[in-house]
Structures are given as C-alpha cells and as structure tokens.
C-alpha cells in the first residue's frame, strides 16, 4: 500500500464524528418496535448490552489494524494471501454497498409514507447519489467535514423529545428484568443493526494522523451513540403503551407528532427533512468504504470504482418497491452485519495474529 500523504489525513478527534454519524442513521427512527417485540419494556437493557458489545468489537478492530499495519485489505492479504483475500475484500465491498442501499431505501420509504407518497425512488436516489459522489470525490477530509455537520446541526433534535414528557409515564419500564435472559439477548441481536457501521474504521484507519490516538475518540463515539439510543428507547417506552409500540413502525417519528410549538403545527416534517443531514454522511462513509475496498483490490481508480458502485446502488434501489421488501432488506443487512461483526471480526483477529507469527518465523 502506498503511504497516504499527510495533507489528505484527518485529525484523530474527527474519528468521533465519523463513527458517530455512520452509526446514527435511518434505524433510529424505528428501532423501538424491533427491540420491544421480544423483550417488551426491558428492551432498553438490550440497547445498553448491544452498546457494550460494540466497544469490545471496536477494541478488536483496532488490534487487527495495528497488527496488520494498514487497513482491512492489508489484514486480508496478511491472513489469506492475495487471491483468497480478494474474495473477502469483495464481500466486504458488497456488504458496505448493501448498507448504502438499506440506509437510503429506508429513508426514502419514510419520505414516501410521511411526506410525499408520490416521490419517485429513482429520482430522489439519483440526485442524492450525485451529491454523495461530489462529497466522496473530495476525499476523506470532505467526508469528515460532512460528518461533523451531520452530527452537530441535527443535534438540537434531541431536545424536542422533552415535549413528550408531559404524556410520558416512566414507571412503564417497571418492573425491570421482567423478561428472560434469552428474550433480552434476542433483542440485543436485533438491536445490532441500529448500531452497525462502525466497522468503517477498518478502511478509514490509514487516513488518520497518529492513528493509535484515535481509539479513544472512537470509543467516545460509541458511548455517545449508546447513550442517545438508550435515552430514546426509554422515552419511547414511557410514551407508548407496549401494544401501541408493537404497531408503530417509526416510533421516533410518531413521538414528534405530539410536539407543539407556536410557529410549527407539525414537527415531524421538520424532523424528517433534517434527517437528510444525518443520512448524508452515513451514505458517504459507507460508499467511500465500498469504493476504497474496490480501489485497493483492483487496478481501478478510486473515482471509477465510486461511479460503478453509485450506479449499482441506484439500480438496486429502484427494484425495492414495497414495505415488505424494505423490511426484508433491513432484516438481511442486520443479519449479515451481525455475523460479520460478531463472528468474522474476532476470527480475523485470531488469523491475523497467527499469520503474523508464522510470517515472522519465516
């Protein structure tokens, strides 16, 4: 791998915004239903558990990166050699493209259900991806800037949840631990989709100045995400009765329905429009990871890889038309992400450690 020049690298603290903004995406709008299906009002425990697991995985990822001295592609080459490694690289690129599709399709669905029923998926995705192309083309520094604004600007939204307190009954979460450990663990697994995306660090690592220092910020990002998710989960549990929550697909958006301000009758429209800012860095980072992987494994230039992935994502997006398919898409990317993070990454660490020792002996 060529060394990355310093002027294209980012400061370690920006990792906080990169990791945080790729985690918070379309999933936040409706994860409450998914966790309460199995563990009911105890779902917030699953949110915290899943959050703790992300810390462990982040730790493992940093270990892999330090050992392989580059990014995921170098780790793959170290562990499997060039050819088999490339197969895994391709899978990784597909996985990130799948994330792009999931995020965008879920957001477009929200737009279609809540705001514009006749919005064309293709048109919106086309213009959105042109914008994404423009940003990603600017390199990691531009993406980090987008991530910064995508985190800071919409952060005021968290205050709007205070409007629900008037109707909230926080005793709903009592009694704590009313479900079996098995139920809570199933919810933890289902919750992992909402947390996904932090594995982007595997590709971003070489672009960070004094990369080792950034680990602290990555963990802070995970901690912030966990806190926000836990807060939203508890507020929604207090606001909705359980059966109501099971019927509500986008609980976070439904909560905005109660917000009352003198100058705005219905807040969810502002919330959804603002969410575009949250989605943008999300898509940018994921698509950058996918195209960067392709660039590293083939002789293609980064820009060309990016165009190919944009076009492929756009084509796939238009084929997904109804709620059932969107749901399926979410489930499948959640599943793949779960196995990728929870099984593949620890296995990779073991392999990298072994192979490094073997190579050193040679």
């Amino acid at each position, binding site marked *: 791998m060529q060394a990355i020049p310093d002027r294209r690298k980012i400061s370690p603290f920006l990792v906080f915004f990169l990791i945080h903004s790729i985690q918070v995406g379309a999933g936040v709008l409706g994860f409450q239903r998914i966790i309460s299906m199995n563990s009911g009002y105890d779902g917030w425990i699953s949110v915290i558990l899943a959050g703790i697991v992300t810390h462990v995985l982040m730790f493992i990822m940093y270990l892999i990166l330090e050992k392989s001295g580059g990014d995921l592609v170098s780790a793959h080459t170290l562990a499997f050699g060039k050819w088999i490694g490339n197969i895994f690289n391709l899978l990784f690129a597909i996985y990130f493209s799948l994330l792009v599709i999931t995020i965008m399709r879920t957001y477009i669905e929200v737009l279609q259900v809540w705001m514009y029923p006749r919005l064309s998926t293709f048109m919106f995705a086309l*213009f959105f991806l042109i914008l994404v192309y*423009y940003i990603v083309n600017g390199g990691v520094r531009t993406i980090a800037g987008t991530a910064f604004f995508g985190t800071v600007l919409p952060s005021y939204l968290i205050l709007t949840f205070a409007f629900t307190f008037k109707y909230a009954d926080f005793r709903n979460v009592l*009694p704590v631990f*009313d479900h079996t450990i098995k139920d809570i663990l199933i919810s933890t697994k289902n919750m992992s989709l909402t947390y996904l995306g932090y594995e982007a660090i595997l590709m971003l690592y070489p672009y960070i100045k004094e990369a080792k220092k950034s680990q602290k910020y990555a963990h802070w990002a995970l901690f912030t995400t966990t806190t926000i998710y836990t807060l939203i989960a508890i507020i929604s549990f207090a606001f909705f009765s*359980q059966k109501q929550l099971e*019927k509500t697909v986008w609980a976070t958006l439904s909560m905005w329905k109660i917000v009352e301000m003198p100058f705005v009758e*219905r807040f969810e429209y502002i919330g959804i429009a603002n969410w575009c800012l949250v989605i943008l860095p999300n898509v940018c980072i994921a698509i950058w990871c996918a195209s960067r992987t392709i660039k590293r494994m083939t002789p293609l230039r980064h820009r060309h890889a990016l165009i190919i992935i944009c076009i492929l994502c756009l084509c796939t997006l238009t084929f997904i038309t109804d709620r059932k398919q969107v749901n399926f898409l979410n489930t499948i990317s959640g599943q793949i992400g779960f196995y990728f993070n929870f099984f593949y990454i620890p296995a990779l660490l073991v392999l990298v450690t072994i192979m490094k020792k073997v190579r050193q002996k040679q």
Partner: protein
Amino acid sequence: MKQLSLIILLICSLFLSGCVEKEILDDLYVETGKAYDYVGENKIRGTALFPIYLSDKSIQNGTLSAEASSTREVLEKLERRAQQPLVRGSLDVVLIGEKLAKKGIIDIGDSLQRDASVGARLYVTVVEGEAGELIKGNYGLRGNGTYISNLITHNIKRRELPETNLHLFLFNYFQEGQTAYLPILKQLSNESIAITGVALFDKDKMVKKIPSEDMFFFKLLVDKLAEGSHVIKMGKKPGAAEETVEASVTSLISKHKIIIKHKSDPVEVTMRIKVRGIVREYTGKKLTPDKVGEVEKKMEKDIEEKCLTMLKEFQELGIDPVGIGQNQKHGVRGFDIKEWKESIYPRTQFNVDAKVQILEAGTVE
C-alpha cells in the same frame, strides 16, 4: 472538475424542487373536523368540516357528508363530491355519535393513527345525539373546528375536563390494565355547545357516562395534576330553612398517588388525593377560620365518598380508567392480565384518602 460539480449541484436543486406534487393551500379543502355517526349495520355516516375563507375575511363552515361502511370509503365518497381535494393534515377534532361509540370506535382510531398526516394532539370526543348535526352548526367566528378544539383545550387546562387527545386515547386503549375515556359534547342550540361529561370505554365500546357534576372527582382520579372547582353544600342556613350555605372551592393544585399493596389478598388500593385550593364564593354569613376548617373537612368527605363510589362502579363494570391494573403491573413480576381481570380486580379493596387545604378566601372576610 470542481466547477462542473458545482454546476451539476445547482441543476440538481433546480430540478429537485419540482420533483413532487405541489399542494397549494387555496386550492384545497383543509378539514378541521370530522364527525362519524352510526346509521345501520356496517354503515356509518361521515361528515367532513372545512373552513371556507371568504373575501371579507370571515369564515364559512363548509360540510359534506356521505354514508359508507368504513372511514376510508367515506373519505373516497366525500372526495367525489368535493369541489377541491380534501386533506386531513390539520384535523383538530373528531366527533363520534353516541350510538357509534356504543358499537365500538377502534376502526376510526386506527384510521387516524395510520394516516401520517394526522397529528397526535387532535381531540376525539363523543357527542350526545348525532355528531353530524352538531358539526353542521355555526359556532364562533373562527370556524367550528377551531371553536370546538378551543372549547376543549381551555376546559382541560383550567377546568374539570381530564387531559385527553388521540394519543392518550390510544395509549389507554392499548395499555394492559387500563381503559380509555373521552369527553362528551352536546349541542345546545345552533350557536352553542357544552361539555356534558366523560364517556368511559370498555375496550372500544362506550359503557358509562360520568355526568358533568362528577367530572371534578373523575379528574382528581385520573390526572396527575388537576384543576377545577367544586361546590360544597354545607347544610342549612341557620334561620332560613330553604336556603343552604354553599362554598365554591377552586382547586389550584391537586395531586394523586395510587398506593397498592401488591402482595396482599385481596389487593388493597389506596388513593391519596391532595387538593390545595381557594374559596371563590361563600353564601353563609361570615367565613371565619373555623368555617374554613369546616369547608376543608366537608370537601374531604365529598371527595372520599364520590371517588370511592366511582371506583366501585368501575370495578363492577370491569373497566379501569384510573389504571389500577397498570399500577399493579409495575410492582409485580410476571403480571398476568387475564388473572388480574378475572379474579383479582373484582375483589380489590379501595380506600380514598383526601386532604384539602384552603389557602386563601378571596379579598373579603
């Protein structure tokens, strides 16, 4: 390259703005109210209310009604007769005829909840008689929808009406160990409406009505914080046999606390109600500190008696607007709603413990 991207971006924003269908306010009928009535087996009549803004800045109430089997179908039929498209985005009130309320209203609740354009703060009310007739009246100057919604809002904020809206109705309906309630309206004349009580529901069917004079006590039971006023009859006036001494007390702050002995058999429930209020009117001779104490005592007794009868009535009907089942659930692991409904709730013992504190008695003594 940079310039090219910039140009592309500008073109994007130019075209994107024309991407979806425009909706111009002047070319729409914005529904502010909706009424549903029972007509026959599987048939309801829906009446839509929308303001028509006239050139002299006054507002005319436009209504359209149609009969169909479901609320969506009503909407479709109405659309066919409306000159401009009907939109539900700023729906303020939904009125439901008493007959329909007794048959079940969750279909209406579901259709409102399902529609993303309908807010959660809208008021759902039951109407004595025909809801369609009530909505066709002419109230106030700002249109019927605003009139009814203002009427309910200020009664919730300052008077005896318990807190209510679509979200709370659905919350109570779906919550285990709690049943829903809605306010009742009645048309007095073509120009006026009154709130005449609270309708209590079993699941989604109206089973009981709380008359307006008992609403103060009902609000004390169901709302975390309640205001409102109550007139206390203090007994005969000395000397004049016909007239009675009355004191009108306005509650400023009141709190309730439900204390449940979860494990005891039968389950014991104590409602602790605290009221702090002021005397607004006194028809006796002189309101001495002793008399104030008497008013406090009498009011405590009133609250305890009325609330206890109410709780027992709810128990007999098998409804639970106060949410006692829900409170029991918070303290018990593995709460079984069926067991609670069938064997525990009917045997529950109630106690009401009221405490009234009169802070002021006005500007005269």
